[in-house]
């Protein structure tokens, strides 16, 4: 009981000091929340999605609260890959944490362009490919909802990617296991899930949609049971590591995802509720291991019984 438990996890050959990441789009590139938490304490920072060009995103309102969570329709506003490399990547490379760049695009070619640009970047540890953003209209969602399209884009990305590739899956599908297998078949090094569930809120006094985009992606504690179920199903279906997220609000929630089969976890919307949460989750997982006399965090992965 005297030695501290081993908190490190290895995903596709990349060793993280602990299994706690930030969920893409909820943590910028770390600059803002770096005021609250020590980025050096995180397993990895996953950046907001970046495209080959700057994107304006959707009109406002872009966010709204819902029971136990929120809806967002940011529409993947981002400054484009050039500014991202120059500014955000330079910022992140000062820290002793892994850097995972989340990539978005309207077309396969746009994704590939970003992946190619990042291939030269030694400061990038992994890529996370967002094939599942429900707010992009030009059909990007289709990649994440059709197994064959997902398999194909994974293959094309893997051909040119210099870093391990994580495919990020959408929960808005009939069979998550099938999608997980498609990503694996395409050569993905890991998968992450869940992205947001498509939701809607109507203002009954003004009788209009609350979000300018009408629908938005739902996140927060309200979606956690769905996320845990999907992580469990995906982890049963594939051999590659699974990164779990969706509503994590505490270390206990993170442990639930690990037991369901996740090799690492990401904290998303709840950063907005508690800007210190990522560090607290890392500390709390360690405390759980100590309390249960478990020597390595990897012993929790998929360890649910019955």
């Amino acid at each position: 009981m005297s030695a501290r438990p081993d908190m490190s996890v290895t995903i596709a050959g990349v060793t993280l000091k602990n299994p706690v990441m930030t969920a893409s789009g909820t943590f910028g590139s770390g600059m803002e929340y770096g005021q609250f938490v020590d980025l050096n304490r995180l397993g990895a920072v996953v950046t907001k999605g970046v495209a080959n060009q700057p994107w304006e995103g959707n009109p406002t309102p872009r966010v709204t609260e819902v029971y136990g969570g929120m809806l967002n329709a940011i529409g993947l506003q981002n400054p484009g890959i050039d500014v991202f490399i120059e500014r955000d990547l330079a910022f992140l490379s000062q820290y002793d944490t892994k850097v995972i760049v989340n990539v978005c695009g309207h077309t396969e070619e746009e994704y590939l362009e970003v992946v190619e640009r990042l291939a030269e970047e030694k400061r990038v540890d992994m890529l996370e490919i967002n094939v599942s953003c429900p707010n992009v209209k030009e059909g990007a969602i289709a990649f994440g909802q059709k197994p064959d399209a997902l398999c194909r884009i994974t293959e094309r990305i893997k051909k040119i990617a210099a870093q391990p590739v994580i495919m990020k899956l959408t929960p808005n599908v009939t069979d998550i296991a099938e999608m997980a297998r498609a990503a694996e078949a395409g050569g993905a090094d890991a998968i992450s899930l869940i992205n947001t569930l498509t939701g809607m809120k109507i203002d009954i006094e003004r009788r209009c949609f609350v979000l300018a985009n009408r629908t938005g992606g739902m996140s927060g504690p309200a979606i956690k049971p769905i996320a845990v179920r999907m992580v469990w199903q995906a982890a049963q279906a594939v051999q590659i590591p699974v990164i779990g997220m969706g509503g994590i609000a505490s270390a206990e929630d993170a442990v639930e995802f690990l037991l369901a089969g996740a090799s690492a976890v990401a904290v998303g919307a709840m950063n907005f509720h508690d800007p210190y949460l990522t560090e607290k989750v890392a500390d709390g997982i360690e405390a759980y291991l100590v309390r249960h006399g478990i020597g390595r965090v990897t012993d929790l992965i998929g360890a649910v019984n019955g």
Partner: protein
Amino acid sequence: MDKITALVTESAELTPGIQSLTVRLPESTDWDVRPGQFAGLYPADGSMLLMRPISVCRWDPARRELRFVYRPAGAGTRSFTALREGDTIDLLGPLGNGYDTEALAGRHVLLLGGGIGVPPMLELAAALRNAGAETQVTAALGYRTDELFLAEDFRETGAEVLIATEDGTAGTKGTVLDAVREAGIRPDAVCACGPMPMLRAVKRYAEELGIDAWLSLEERMACGVGACLGCVVKTRETDAHSHVKNARICTEGPVFAAREVEIG
């Protein structure tokens, strides 16, 4: 900037539908609050997870006391009305840029507050009192009826106070700009907070007069600290942070030079 648990020292209704809430920050906090900034107030109920952005109405650094004046609009702000002296509330702040009082010093500054846009102007009026003897402040405050809140507090800062009411039961019947025109005021700069139609009118008014105008904008927020890109406003030029024509109201704002933002 941090998230802290503050002690409620006052919670009361000012006029029907307008609440005042004063909190004392813990000793460990080193908040340096500027007029125009805001804080995120968290409802205690677990079903509401996002903070409610509320502007600073008064800041007393010596006592570490922050005052908010707010309108109970939905479930979150309604839940704040149940707070009593001795209760606690979680706050994220101080948020946003706030007004540049140095740029306003020495001028005749017109403060325009419409409805629930009145409260943030109070801390600005108070700050400008200390901005040099030449600084002159006129506050034009717009209300629906003669249930005027905070008007006395403005007078106490030494500002000249003009009142406009929608129903004409006090001051000028009409908008704050009607009151300004009626009084024949000719300011060097204008700062405004209020509903969007008022802000648009203020923008035109400042353009006509050829004076600087600063506007306090509102938008739905999630993070309040610039991370989520939820709260943007269209800008005339490409923004230094976003590299698109969108600025974050929570970070680059909520106070913008009127000419920089596209508010239609």
